[in-house]
């Protein structure tokens, strides 16, 4: 079975090499060649993961660990690569292959003759590799490696249409949140090391998911769990990081579908599911997870109703479900959230890829019924006072003021402090030089400012 497991991870690696190396060598691949590479990688990867599933079905304890050997080994430190195939990782990997394959097929026409066709699929190959690595990771470091690949590809794809400033700014915003998430995950990994663990099998037990029993204490579970929750909140756009999700819609629709409708946005929930035996150790942690999930669900449901474009509306609908999934995990459910992820992922992907033809769909519906589509007044309209509804509308249209709060209370003070330090350094070097010391002051931009960019 090991070779099957290896095939599952080798496919995205080979795809990335096939698309990335020619870019590095300035060799432009034809669209048909790229499509052939994509099809081959998807078919082989999906077939390997399906075969893996078939071979695991008869097992009473479906848990297969594929050892890929030591990547680094020195006295006192070993970095061995291990893939875990179990009830959690196999469905997630298969979902990744199916949705990425579908979206690749869709995008091969959607992006036809688009400048950056190769770049789009290279970044998607990075994303697929990140997803597969994260899903199958047997250790927290391997998971971290995949996690970072997903983050980088997301940010660069949001900024795909890079001649316009808005996608680029939003890509940077996504990247900043992801870095916070990455840092939280890395600190969680370090904390686990500090407590003496890091291999999932050692921390969560070798029983097949979700039957493992965590070997950490309640305090350790709370500390590490909170850090992992922070990482998951960043990746899954839970409060207070929800502001990046609608911004991420600046990317091409196919990548929005697979990233923010289906896979990437569920990665936080996947992480919590992966460490779920640890969550059971701490009631406080579970309460916090439930609260965060419910709060985000309410927030996303309110905000989603006031969005003025279809992609943002879908992404908040998706976020509502993701938040409910997180709450379900906090409640101690395991298979329901997994099924919920699979269902929500498939539905949102479909909705996203249909989004560009929404008006056409509406017109067809209206032609079919021979009238305008009815505007339904909601339940809340009848019971909420006008003032509250206006306030809620403002709250929703400003997306809960989350970005404003982060800008005003984190980004601006941070920039102000370091700008002040920069000014002091200037005074110091001017003093030592006996005059103006900075040539770079004469290097001026033609327009815009850093504040605007940040």
């Amino acid at each position, binding site marked *: 079975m090991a070779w099957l497991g290896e095939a599952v991870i080798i496919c995205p690696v080979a795809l990335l090499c096939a698309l990335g190396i020619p870019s590095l*060598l300035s060799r432009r691949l034809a669209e048909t060649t790229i499509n052939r590479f994509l099809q081959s990688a998807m078919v082989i990867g999906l077939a390997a993961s399906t075969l893996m599933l078939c071979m695991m079905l008869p097992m009473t304890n479906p848990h297969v660990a594929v050892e890929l050997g030591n990547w680094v*080994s*020195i*006295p006192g430190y070993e970095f061995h690569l*291990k893939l875990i195939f179990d009830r959690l990782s196999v469905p997630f990997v298969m979902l990744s292959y199916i949705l990425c394959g579908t979206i690749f097929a869709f995008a091969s026409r959607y992006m036809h003759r688009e400048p950056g066709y190769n770049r789009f699929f290279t970044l998607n190959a990075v994303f697929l590799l990140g997803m597969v690595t994260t899903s199958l990771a047997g250790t927290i470091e391997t998971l971290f490696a995949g996690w970072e690949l997903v983050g980088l590809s997301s940010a660069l794809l949001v900024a795909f249409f890079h001649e316009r400033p808005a996608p680029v700014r939003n890509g*940077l915003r996504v990247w900043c949140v992801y*870095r916070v998430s990455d840092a939280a995950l890395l600190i969680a990994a370090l904390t686990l090391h500090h407590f003496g663990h890091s291999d999932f099998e050692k921390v969560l037990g070798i029983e097949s998911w979700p039957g493992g029993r965590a070997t950490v204490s309640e305090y350790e579970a709370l500390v590490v769990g909170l850090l992992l929750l922070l990482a998951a909140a960043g990746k899954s756009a839970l409060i207070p990081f929800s502001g990046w999700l609608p911004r991420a819609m600046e990317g091409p629709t196919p990548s929005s579908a697979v990233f923010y409708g289906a896979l990437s946005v569920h990665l936080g929930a996947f992480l919590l599911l992966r460490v779920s035996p640890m969550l059971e150790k701490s009631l406080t942690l579970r309460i916090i997870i439930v609260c965060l999930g419910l709060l985000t669900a309410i927030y996303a449901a309110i905000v989603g109703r006031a969005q003025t474009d279809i992609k943002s509306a879908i992404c908040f609908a998706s976020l509502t479900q993701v938040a409910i999934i997180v709450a379900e995990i906090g409640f101690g459910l395991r298979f329901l959230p997994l099924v919920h992820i699979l269902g929500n992922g498939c539905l949102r992907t479909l909705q996203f890829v249909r989004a560009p033809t929404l008006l056409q769909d509406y017109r067809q519906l209206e032609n079919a019924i021979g009238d305008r589509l009815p505007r339904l007044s909601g339940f809340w309209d009848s019971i909420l006072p006008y003032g509250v509804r206006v306030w809620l509308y403002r709250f929703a249209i400003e997306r809960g003021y989350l970005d404003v709060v982060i800008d005003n209370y984190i980004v601006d003070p941070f*920039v102000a402090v370091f700008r002040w330090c920069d000014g002091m350094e200037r005074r110091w070097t001017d003093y030592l030089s*006996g005059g103006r010391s900075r040539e770079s002051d004469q290097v001026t931009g033609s327009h815009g400012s*850093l504040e605007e960019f940040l």
Partner: protein
Amino acid sequence: MKDFHLPWLELAILFCLVGGAWVGRLRNPHVARRWALLFSGLALVATTGAWLDFDYLDAQQADDTFHLLSHLAGRELLVMDELSAPLLPLAALLFFLVPLATLQTKVRRFSFAWNLVSEALILALFSCQEQWGIIVFLAVGTIPPYLELRERGKPTHVYIIHMALFILLLVVGWTFAEIEGGSGRVHSLWVIIPLLGAILVRSGIAPFHCWMTDLFEHASFGTALLFVMPISGAYAAVRLVLPIAPDWVLSSIGLASLFTAVYASGMALVQTEARRFFCYLFLSHSALVLVGLEVGPVNPLALTGALCVWLSVGMALGGFGLTLRALEARRGRLSLTHFHGLYEHTPELAICFLLTGLASVGFPGTVGFVGTELLIDGAVEAYPYIGVAVVIAGALNGVALIKTYFILFTGTRYTSAVSLRIRTRERFAVLLLASLILIGGIYPQPGVHSRNEAAKALLKTREALAPSPTFPSPHHVEEHHTPEHGG
């Protein structure tokens, strides 16, 4: 100590010195560049030969055969050990790639002769284990950038003040050390404080870092890059301070370096000009190397990680600097307050920018990943707060990097009357560095093993001060560490 099969180290330095003298006589800069490339290429071959020979000999230390210089000096001046083995070819590679990737627009501003002289000094420094030799090479090495600043009519006060302070402290510190009996014992504050100060100044540890930003402001980018990139301050720390410093000194350097790593990463985020951004990015990374070196005696893994990061930073930020320099050659000094839209002109440089930058922040699959992991892992084992601070610095550096990438390569496409595409020589440099970064990232074991051996050798130099923490034996690892560090 074993002998090399050829006098590699002497040859490498000789090539540079002869090359420097010869190229200095040439008036035509294009001819000068060709000769400079030949001599620095020969030096690269010699240092690579020395490294391979050292690996083949499987020795802890090796020196040149025939002992020509030893006969003249009366002692072994040039020696290669585990620490310096990869540093020499890395330095030679950087000194080869910078003139190679110098475009015609910059060829008159870059001094190829002084570049070769500087290379000779750096190679001599990394081959030298004699304390006074190290001090002399470090001191003389500060002269070429000063001469360039003067020649270009740029302000030199900041540079002179800091470098004079550095040399003075170094000389005073080691003079007192000699008076007190040399290395191998704990010394008084008369020795420790000046040496500590010298290391802080040379490494650009805050608040002594302003000379570095000033150098990047006024010197040519190539000169500034080559002066700072080998991280000579870390070498001085390893050879001069590590063997004699009590733990509190190492902790002090470690804390100051940690602060610098975070501070410089924050400063990189608010810079409005590309050179200053690069300088702070480099400062943050070089400070991380020092953090690991100082935590090393408490946890050897951190020392191994620091030595790995030293190499990866040299490669990654070296390539990153070359990319920025190539962009500067096309657009002049680069403001970071507006978009430049250069992607469509030079997609290869964009890829290289991302690849080298991400490698510097320890992105998975690149040469920096395992080193950063080791450094953070070891630091956390020793002092948890250090690990957290290092992670924060890495996160900020990552944000600064992508922000700069977006500013330089995205935005409305820049319209140019001339082609800005990558040139063949630049492409060679870019592909070579990209290959090294990716190969080192995908197959890190040889590099990490070599750095681990170097770390062991360095810790032995502190055995006279206190029992150093031993590396766990394989049996010990199996029993205690594999579960914890299995990654």
